[in-house]
Structures are given as C-alpha cells and as structure tokens.
C-alpha cells in the first residue's frame, strides 16, 4: 500500500534498464519500497540493474517482458500481479531510434513506433486493468517533451511519444474515480545513455531530477509532471510559435 505521501511499497518497472526508472526506484527504495519487479528483455544489464537495487535492501525480481510482443503482456504482467498487490507501475521503456537512418529505413521507424506506442498501449492497458481490480495504485508513464510538438530533428520518436502521451491522458480520465492514479511524466532532454550521442538541449535534466519530480507527483497525485517544471511554461509558448518560425528554431 502507498503511505500518506504516495510512496509505494511495491513497484513494477516496465523497461527495467531505463536510467530514469532505476533512479526512481533508488529514490523510492530509500523511502518505503521493498518489492521491485524489473520487467524487460532478459539481459546482463537487466540482472545488473536488479543486483544494484538489491544492494539497497529491496527484494528485486526480474521478469522477461518484450514491448514488441503485446500478445504476451497479459500473461507476463498477470503473473506479477498474482504474487501480490503492485502499488505503482512505472512504464519506462522506449527507444530513441536514429532519425536520419529511420527516415531512410521505414521498418526501423516502425519499430520505434511499435515499441514506444503500441507496445506501451498494450502494457498500460493490462497494468491499468490489474490496478483497477485491486482498487488502488499509480500508473506512471514516461512521455517526453518531444511529443508536445513535432521537431524536424526527432519527429519519429516525438510522434510515438505524442501518441503515448495522448493515450495516457485519456486513460487517466477513463480511470478517474476508480482509485487508480495515472500520471504522465514529460521530461525534457535527460542526460543518459540514451542521449550520449546527442547534442544537449536547453533545460537539460538528469534521471535523478526526474525521479525527484515523480516522487513529488505521487505525493500530490499529479496528473502531469514536467521536468524541469519550467518546461511547462516554455512549451506553452513554443506551442503557439508559427510553424514557419518553429521549423527554423535551433531546438
């Protein structure tokens, strides 16, 4: 059960090697979280992530999960929920792709879209259903500021996050009053292994800062969280910039 400050005792991470997810898990373990499930494709990195969290004192288990195999989601997640209540599901998987290459090779672009959008739609619906039947819990979905407006430099990734973001908002409304809390997290540029090859954007942030914002959002039962918070204002302004201007902006 969550405590008075919204901190979960049990956490299911979808995308168990995500740096943001692991930073969040570390933060929550330092407070109350005792049980962590890391779901992801079996890999040494996933096991290493689990070992790192175990060292902090949590009971951590890994579970094989593939975003690109939606048929399996019901079974895989069903097994996790059968082991006991999950107070928080953190949907953190996603791939950035390589915009230039993906434009040349549409199948790669489709893979980005399937992972970030359709895979997430399936996993989120399965997770939300399980949370709803236990009458409580938070579904936290990592969206991105890239989904707010299409940018020349990463619109394939951006469009997948736009879809996920819109889907999650709707899901949050659908679940309003069911005891399930749905929160969209929109980080800006996050310094992580996903972005090491990219040029840093303004208002860049860190996985730890996103984790802090998630913890605060849980306490407040927020529906939308921007990281850093100032991005909300910046993006409100950028949303209204005419396209002819926006496309020339160095963002």
């Amino acid at each position, binding site marked *: 059960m969550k*405590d*008075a*400050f919204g901190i979960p005792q049990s956490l299911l991470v979808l995308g168990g090697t995500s740096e943001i997810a692991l930073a969040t898990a570390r933060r929550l373990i330092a407070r*109350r979280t005792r049980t962590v499930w890391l779901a992801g494709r079996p890999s040494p990195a996933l096991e290493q992530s689990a070992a790192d969290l175990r060292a902090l004192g949590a009971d951590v288990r890994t579970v094989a999960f593939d975003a690109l195999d939606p048929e399996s989601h019901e079974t895989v997640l069903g097994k996790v929920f059968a082991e006991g209540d999950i107070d928080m599901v953190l949907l953190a998987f996603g791939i950035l792709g390589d915009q230039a290459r993906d434009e040349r090779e549409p199948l790669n672009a489709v893979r980005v879209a399937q992972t970030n959008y359709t895979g997430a739609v399936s996993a989120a619906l399965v997770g939300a259903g399980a949370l709803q039947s*236990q*009458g*409580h819990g938070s579904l936290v979905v990592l969206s991105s500021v890239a989904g707010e407006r299409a940018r020349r430099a990463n619109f394939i990734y951006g469009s997948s996050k736009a879809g996920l973001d819109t889907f999650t908002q709707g899901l949050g409304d659908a679940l309003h009053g*069911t*005891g399930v809390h749905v929160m969209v997290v929109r980080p800006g540029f996050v310094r992580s292994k996903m972005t090491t090859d990219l040029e840093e954007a303004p208002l860049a942030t860190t996985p730890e800062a996103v984790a802090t914002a998630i913890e605060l959002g849980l*306490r407040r039962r927020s529906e939308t969280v921007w990281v850093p918070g100032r991005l909300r204002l910046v993006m409100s302004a950028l949303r209204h910039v005419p396209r002819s201007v926006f496309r020339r902006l160095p963002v």
Partner: protein
Amino acid sequence: MSADTVSVSGWGRTAPTNARLIRPRTYEEAVTAVRGCGTRGSIPRGLGRAYGDAAQNAGGTVLDMTGLDRVHAIDADNGIVLCDAGVSLHRLIEVLLPLGWFVPVTPGTRQVTVGGAIGADIHGKNHHVSGSFSRHVLSLELLTADGEIHTVGRDTPLFDATTGGMGLTGVILTATLQLQPVETSLMTVDTERARDLDDLMARLTATDDHYRYSVAWIDLLARGTATGRAVLTRGDHTPLEALREGTRARRDPFAFHPSRLPAPPSFLPERLLNRRGVALFNELWYRKAPRARTGELQRLAAFFHPLDGVPHWNRIYGRGGFVQYQFVVGHGQEETLRRIVRRVSEHRCPSFLAVLKRFGDADPGWLSFPVPGWTLALDIPAALPGLGAFLDALDEDVATAGGRVYLAKDSRLRPELLAAMYPRLEEFRALRAEVDPRGVFVSDLARRLSL
C-alpha cells in the same frame, strides 16, 4: 443493503482507495456481506475518524456500520448500556445524559462509533484514571470470518485481540458498556499555563491525580527557552450542589445542545496552514489562556470536543490532507520526549492541534496503544517538504525508547518497526491466522503494515 464502489479515505484524507461500500441495516445483512465479500476481503468502518487507512480496503468491501445504530437496553440504576456498534458516542451522550450517565471514555470527538472506539481502543483525557475504552466494555458480540456471531467476554484471547485490533478480528455488532455517573452536563475546569516542557511535565506529574480529566495543549512552534510551552486544562464533572439554586443550569442540569459552525469549503488550497499563520495562532492561543484559573464552568462539548463545532474541519488542510502523529514513551523516557519536542520545534512543523498527556495503566488489548508514560499527538500538513523522512527519524527514536505509535492515527509507519513497538504482534497474527485463515478481514492498514 446498498452497495456502491466509492473512494474511501481516512480523516487525514491522504491515501484514498476504492472499495465496495456496503451499509448493512440488520445483523443478517452484515453476515451476508461478510460471507460474500470476495477475495479482497472486508473491513468494518464507523464514522471515518481514524486518520489513516485503518477503515479502507482497496478493491474489497468496506462495511459502513453506521446503519446499525440502535441502543437496545439501558440499566439506569447500574449504568450499563447495551447498544449496536454503529451507535455514535454523540448519540449515546444524548441518550444517557438525562439519565445521569456519561460515556466512560471519550476522545476529542463525539463522532466515533462504539465499534470504532473498541477497535482502536481509544483513550481520552481521563486515561490516567479510567484507562482506555476497552476497560469499560463488559462484553461484545463479534461477527467472525466464518459468518458466525460470537459473544466475547472479558479476559479471553479474542476479546484482547479485538480491543485495539483495528477491526481485523471481525465485525463488532453490539457492546455492553459500563458508564460513568454524572450529576450535571457541566465541567469544572482549572486552567494553567506551563512556560516550557519541563514545567509542564512537572505540573502533570505533581497534580494530575487530583483530576479525573487532564490534557495539555502544547505550542510546538515555540522555540528557545519557551520550547514546549503549554496550556493545561484539567477538571471533572460538576456536581449538582455546585450550581446555585434558581439558576437555569440548576433547573436543567443535563442540558446538552452543542452548536455547530458551518463547514469549511472542500476546495481550500494546500498551503493555507503555513508556519507563520500557525505560529501566530499558537501565540494568541497561549496568550489568551489565563496564567491560572480555577473552578471555571464549561459545557461538556467545549471541554471535550471543541473541534466537533466545525464539521469537516479536516478540510482546512486542503486537498493534500494531513498526517497525525501520536506516540507514547514510558515513564523514565522523558529525555526522548524532550528531544522529540525539540526536533519538532526546530523542524518548524506547522502544528496547532498538538496535545500532551500522561497515560495511566495499560489495558490488556494486544494492539492497544496506551502504556503508562507520555503521549504526544500532533497534526502536520502532508505537503510539508521532507515530512516522511522526518517522521521516520522520530519513529526510530520512539522505538528505541520502547515506545510506539498509534495505529488509529497512522498512515505512514515503516512496517519493520511494528513488532518492536507492539511486542504482542506475533500473538495477534497467530490468532488472526486461526480465526480468519482465509483473510476475510483485511484493511489497507493491515496490508501496509502486514498486521
């Protein structure tokens, strides 16, 4: 019997969850509800005054017991009442006062049910004399997990597990209570100020035994030499002979007409109660109190239940809600109490409902909270930054000193500390496993703390 899926939270409004709310109107309906509650179990709920998640059951059934609210029999000669568990103390007082009887123990609100009072084994300002609520329960009827109704007498394991058992042993249907005789509905009250915590503890230790009721409001925002300054109010029921002949009070000694102000709106902002405002309130409240006044006549409601005058007063904390923290440490642990008061004051917790009390002897309930010593209760807005970690640190201090926190107020305790705080927890778990092997009775509190 109506059933709706609704969001349920405690009085602190911090962690709402959804449950099927069923309001039985007969014992048979209660039995049916318990038998058919499904895999996520059920938990009885009274008037929802537990601050945390004690009367919530996410995804399961919550039994609203306020539909069972009959007073069955009153023995006016011996002061014994048999009533349903859903009867509120407010109703009992209304019924009993004109007969010259009063509830044996009342908390800071009349808006609790008899069932809730037993389940949380509540205490009042008279704990140092009268113990907790369960001391005055002669017997009770319990609807257990097998769907049967049992009469449970004192000095049985089931009785001691049920008093303070947070509703996890079964649904209390009726209780037989021993009452307190009174001659009037007035209170004779002595008020005095204590300039700091040591002064306060000295006064309580020296003269508490002269009074049936005793409590101290404490200013936790005062700093420096004033740390722990307090206003003590102590008193007893006014005897009839103390009222002058011919006065209205004498003609109608059992008058009981508590007034109510309008409720605060439900949309207040989270930060309404900030440090500055509360510090100012505390300053005025302290200054307003007389240095020493004796023999003042007060109405029952003003003395026992001042907050009942404001319905939904919990809304003043805004939608973020608030946390109540109450702990007790034994006699001889005064240093721990001093340290905690100092830390709360240094942390600048905007708390205006802080209360210090000296507990008397403990009662046998396995999870009953009071033990002889000092108890401090304080309210803190949940939005206060760093509050979770701060209270965790206080827990460590309390547990190290052999103390405990109050489950009826808890919404955030670390489960690992529970066994140290409640040494009979294992017996409680064992009894539950025996009388409720399928886990029919379960609450969010029970899940959170693995009770």
